[in-house]
């Protein structure tokens, strides 16, 4: 049981670190939204599911799973609304410029 908890939390931390690196390294707000909307949600899901497995079958574990489901719903919604506002206020998406290497 403890091995499963440690594996879930460590894999979740891997995705969270990847999302943080993407938040710093990516060039545009539209590309950074991929790091926040997809990778961060997966990392949070894995870590919270690991904590719920550590608690066993109690009311607190059920509420932790509730937070997990709420975050899976809310995080893409917030990213989508923010990016729609960015696109409608005239922010141009990043494209690859000619003559500049990658």
């Amino acid at each position: 049981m403890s091995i499963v908890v440690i594996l879930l939390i460590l894999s979740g931390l891997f995705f969270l670190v990847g999302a943080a690196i993407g938040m710093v390294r990516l060039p545009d707000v539209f590309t950074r939204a991929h790091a926040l909307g997809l990778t961060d949600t997966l990392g949070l899901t894995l870590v919270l599911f690991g904590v719920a497995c550590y608690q066993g079958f109690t009311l607190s574990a059920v509420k932790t799973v509730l937070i997990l489901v709420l975050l899976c719903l809310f995080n893409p919604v917030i990213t989508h609304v923010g990016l729609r506002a960015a696109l409608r206020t005239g922010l141009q998406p990043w494209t690859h410029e000619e003559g500049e290497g990658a």
Partner: protein
Amino acid sequence: MQIFFVAVLLTTVALALVYLFRMVFGPTLFDRLLGLNGISNKAILILVLIGTLYERLDVFVDISVGYALLNLVGAVAVAKYLEMKGMP
């Protein structure tokens, strides 16, 4: 197991500092909005981990649910305001 959760907690705090960098030095306003959302997610995670560490998860988990709901309402309100206002 206690040591493991302390390590996970410290790693999460370090990741929140990375999002704080993006929020302070973001080129546009929407970068700051995304950074705020990331910090809120990390705060929810930190609350759950503190509750696990102190063995009082039943107290901290309710605060986390409230924080998640408040995060959604605040972020959507800011984004809709910026969208209706026009060019920032």
